[in-house]
């Protein structure tokens, strides 16, 4: 559902399938089958070069037979227009594992670029919605295509890993008797990460709130946190000359 001049169809399909995992993919007649091939051959591709209007129904049959696997139909506006009734059939069955992607370039690219009905009148998103497919939308830019649900997993995996590493370190301090007995490592990790994140996000807008130089702020927050959980630490520029006790940390 995009204007051809805004999106590169090969790139769109490749991006959509980049992280396909177990997904079963049906390609419609005809250029979408080329897009599918260009994205890389795959044993779970079901490509059509005929049976025009049937792509969505093949996807539905697959989706109902394999309800635990994601099924993706990638087709064009011409093929979708020929099988428009199948949107009503899908709307009635409501399979939760079926995604239909229409590359709408408003023309029949295979036969000489004659304009299709979507160029002047038909609105396939509107048709899909009216057929009971509630989550129907138009994507017009690459950033929308890249903004997929699994991206939240990507976005959270780095902070989650950092938090886990920090918790392990703090728990280790407790185990070695370097910190107080009764603190919660998760809360401590949340405090430190929260402070560093807020500083990073806010220091340009509110220099008065975050006056420490960027190079030393994280170090200061870390020292404050260690002190809060009862770790005895030496001076910031730790030389340890004045402090002979063995159980010491330099943050």
């Amino acid at each position, binding site marked *: 559902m995009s204007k051809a001049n805004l999106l590169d169809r090969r790139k769109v399909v490749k991006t959509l399938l980049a992280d396909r995992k177990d997904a*079963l993919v049906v390609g419609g007649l005809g250029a979408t089958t080329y897009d599918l091939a260009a994205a890389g051959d795959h044993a779970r591709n079901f490509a059509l070069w005929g049976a025009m209007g049937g792509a969505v129904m093949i996807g539905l049959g697959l989706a109902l037979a394999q309800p635990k696997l994601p099924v993706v139909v990638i087709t064009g506006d011409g093929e979708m227009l020929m099988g428009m009734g199948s949107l009503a059939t899908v709307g009635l069955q409501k399979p939760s594992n079926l995604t239909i992607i229409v590359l709408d370039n408003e023309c029949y690219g295979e036969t000489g670029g004659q304009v299709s009905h979507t160029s002047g009148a038909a609105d396939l998103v509107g048709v899909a919605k009216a057929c009971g497919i509630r989550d129907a939308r138009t994507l017009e830019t690459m950033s929308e295509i890249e903004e997929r649900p699994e991206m939240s997993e990507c976005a959270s995996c780095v902070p989650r890993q950092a938090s886990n590493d920090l918790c392990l370190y703090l728990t280790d301090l407790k185990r070695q008797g370097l910190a107080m007995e009764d603190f919660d490592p998760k809360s401590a990790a949340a405090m430190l990460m929260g402070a560093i994140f807020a500083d990073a996000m806010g220091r340009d807008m509110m220099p008065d709130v975050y006056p420490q130089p960027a190079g030393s702020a994280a170090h200061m927050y870390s020292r404050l946190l260690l002190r809060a959980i009862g770790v005895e630490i030496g001076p910031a520029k730790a030389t340890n000359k004045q402090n002979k006790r063995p159980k010491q940390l330099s943050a």
Partner: protein
Amino acid sequence: MHARADASSEQGANWPEDIFAILQRYDVRQVPYVPDAGHSQLINRVLASSTMRGIPLTTEEEGVALLAGAWAGGQRGVLLMQSSGVGNCINMLSLTQIFRFPFLTLVTMRGEWGEFNPWQVPMGASTQGVFELSGVRVLRATHPGEVKDVMEAAASQAYNACTATAVLLSQRLIGTKVFVK
């Protein structure tokens, strides 16, 4: 406005049950259909079944494509339609030749035995020819007592031999539709 004349033979009342039992035995899971009075009893059995899924279509060709997808996903299916819908399937039937999936369709016939509606006659007269030209083998049941055997042969041919098969359930079998006030 429309009523159905009784089937000519009383012992035939159970033929839809015979079909249902055979479909069950062959573990048929997806049953796409465009409604037809002749199929109504079978459709009701399918919709009440816990193992089969009845899937209403907007046009018969959807059912051919659906069964191709179902088979790719490991499930058998059967398409229920009436003879006037066969013409809607022609191009989509190419899927049965390209993928050689086990295609089975049960077609209730109109436009033959005692038809009152002239609009049913052209497609009814060409139904068998359309299937054969499209590479689908045709079996026919005319009398209630033979439905079971014909159906058994068709299911075996479709599901075991992966040979696209249509069973024509004749208008004489399903009972001639009559027009009443």
